[in-house]
């Protein structure tokens, strides 16, 4: 019961015109379907609610709202307050291939007007979807054009520019994951604390890169790059990693005959002449990927250190569950160990706790 109280429920609305691709995205990211399988999805009737546990105690309350005009009408009229209150994030999907851009924009405007009425502090993620249908040379131009138009509409409806983010996506490549990663990053309550702990771990291990990702959806929660890792020319490597891991999961599921959501490996190692890489479990819901430079001794030490550090990170997943007293004791137990690293620890962890909403 306490756990239920302590769970962070975040309401996320997924809206857009009918056929824009909302349910497809949801099924690919959260239900492990293939991009090819989503052709079978029919139109969503009214709202489909899914509660997705994410990172331990973050409960994503995802409202996949049917995009047909009659449903949108009902959201904006009779269900207005029910739908639009307490919204943390609105994800609005624009179909780039739609012929009726003007009415898309109108629908968007009325939606965010309703949103502003009931949840003015929510964040809006605008996904310009189906970008694979745009020829490669026109992609940036089209994206720019669309996002400028939408940005103007948002300003009219009194949303601050920092509340709105724009992403070009397509289910056929990894850009989909990039957008959703940002959504998740925004929603995870203690992202700051996690990052600080990861940074310390990275310094200890002397790793080029640390990537923390959620196990079932393979979405990257956060990452730390240091030293050589920062110069990596692949700026989109995190979403690529997501798609690589997802494909791997699918193939494992086919091989062992189990469900994709239940498949997991305990460790994955790749060593080559230029780097060493391993992925291992970190907490109940997350895995950690570590990229090390080419040194066998450091690599094996890193593996041992990460398994020793697991206990520390377990606190992150449950720290909000136990209530204020537990938070204090947890802070105290972490703080003495990190005393030597400076007194900013106390402030940093309290900063993380204060950022809980």
């Amino acid at each position, binding site marked *: 019961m306490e756990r239920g109280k302590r769970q962070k429920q975040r309401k996320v609305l997924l809206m857009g015109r009918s056929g824009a691709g909302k349910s497809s995205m949801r099924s690919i990211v959260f239900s492990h379907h293939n991009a090819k399988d989503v052709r079978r999805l029919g139109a969503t009737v009214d709202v489909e609610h899914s509660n997705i546990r994410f990172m331990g105690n973050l409960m994503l309350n995802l409202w996949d709202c049917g995009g047909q005009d009659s449903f949108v009408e009902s959201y904006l009229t009779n269900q207005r307050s029910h739908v639009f209150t307490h919204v943390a994030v609105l994800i609005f999907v624009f179909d780039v291939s739609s012929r009726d851009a003007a009415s898309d924009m109108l629908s968007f405007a009325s939606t965010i007007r309703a949103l502003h009425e009931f949840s003015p502090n929510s964040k809006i993620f605008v996904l310009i979807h189906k970008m694979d249908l745009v020829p490669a040379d026109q992609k*940036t131009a089209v994206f720019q054009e669309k996002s400028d138009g939408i940005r103007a509409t948002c300003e009219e409806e009194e949303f601050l520019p920092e509340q709105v983010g724009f992403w070009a996506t397509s289910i056929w*490549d990894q850009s989909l994951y990039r957008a959703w990663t940002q959504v998740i990053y925004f929603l995870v309550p203690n992202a700051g604390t996690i990052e600080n702990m990861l940074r310390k771990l990275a310094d200890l291990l002397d790793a080029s890169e640390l990537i923390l990702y959620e196990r079932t959806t393979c979405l990257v929660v956060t990452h730390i790059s240091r030293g050589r890792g920062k110069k990596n020319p692949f700026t*989109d490597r995190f979403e690529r990693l997501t798609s690589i891991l997802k494909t791997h999961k699918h193939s494992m599921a086919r091989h062992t005959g189990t469900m994709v959501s239940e498949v997991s490996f305990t460790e994955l190692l790749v060593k080559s002449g*230029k780097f060493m890489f391993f992925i291992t479990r970190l907490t109940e819901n997350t895995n950690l990927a570590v990229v090390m430079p080419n040194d066998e001794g450091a690599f094996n030490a890193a593996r041992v250190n990460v398994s020793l550090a697991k206990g520390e990170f377990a606190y992150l997943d449950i720290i909000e569950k136990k209530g204020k007293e537990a938070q204090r004791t947890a802070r105290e137990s972490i703080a003495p160990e990190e005393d030597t690293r400076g007194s900013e620890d106390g402030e940093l962890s309290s900063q993380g706790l204060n950022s809980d909403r």
Partner: protein
Amino acid sequence: MHTLFGENILSPAADQVPLPDPFELAFNLYPSASSDTPSKSSPPQNDWLTQLQKQAPTDGATSFSHGTQQGPPPRRKGNPRLLFMGLRRCGKSSVQKVVFQKLPPADTLYLEATNKIEKASMQSFMNFESAEIPTQLPVLSPEYEHATVFTNIGAVIWIIDSQDEYLTSISELLRVAVFLAENYPRANLEVFIHKTDGLSEEYKYDTFREVRQRVQDELSDFGYGDRAVSYYQTSIFDHSIFEAMSKVIMKLLPQLPAMETLLTKLCSTCRIQKAYLFDTVSKIYIATDTSPTFLKDYEVCSDYVDVIVDIKQLYGWLDAPKDAPKDGSQPQNEDPELESEGTQPKIEGVQPKSEASPSKSGSSQPKSAPDTNMLGESMVTFDKGGDNYMYAREISNSLSLICLMGQGSGPDKRKLIEYNVDILHDALLQVFKV
């Protein structure tokens, strides 16, 4: 050699790797009789067909292409040469492009009909060369210079479209089979029962059985009943085409028994369930151990190779400021990825996202960082006990050993397994040096 065009018209050969490749097959037993190197200017191997067609067949080529088994014993060189034949629209170009040129299977819809001999080749561990004969070319008729097409062929692959009516295909196949048995008895005949992706299990099996039965009967009627013909069910939309190609190519390799024995030995000592020697670029395996092969195992190993290659591509970029020329050349591989972030590569499908560059950039970099002679190695563990896992080891630039480990090969035995694999690596080097 005189051609109508200058030599620079011919596409240049791929840049040679600076290190001498120990796997270079030095199999030039009969250079004089070889028709592949007709002139000292040694044109690139891709164009062997163009070369032969332009020349009048006056070289020693014809000396043992016609007639029966006289002349020197099978001079199977290490480069498998394949010929695709079949009726119209049965899928020859698709198979060639999907296997050798990494075309995503969905894009084969846009291929046009072929009206001249199409060649494809892949420079990787082995130089695969294949050619496709369009249906309307009357290769079997006596006035056609079939020597130019059929010389030095390792295998002829006849593709039957199982979703179409296949009886005409079978009769054509028999004509080709008889022709080959008479003129080129050393060429293997393989039959792909293709486009099996949409069919039900029973239908697939029935078609398979029927085709096999008919061909066998008719061949024995003609008196060639002892000719070995192999049948495979394939489809470009899953891994079956790669498995079939692997088996076809395995038959053309003279080193196969040696590799098989080595792998079987390794499997028995290290409790490995299945081991494959993969050609990393094409994902065709060139050897496996003698336990029964299932498509499932091949699929998971092939996907695993994808994962490794992709991860290596993401993190295997080189960062050595002291080595200016090398540094200049390496990031070129990744630059196209950088600029074209807009053109996102496919994540679906079974092919790795990029061409040969990742495996090359992965391992041997002779100059820059200290320990780069170390060849890549990878492992994925499925369960806590550490028993069920997959192990991969790079043997050379484009050859990898992938093993599916079984019970009893847990973490405490890992060092021993690595030692054994090292020994296998050295043994393979020796096999190919010879």
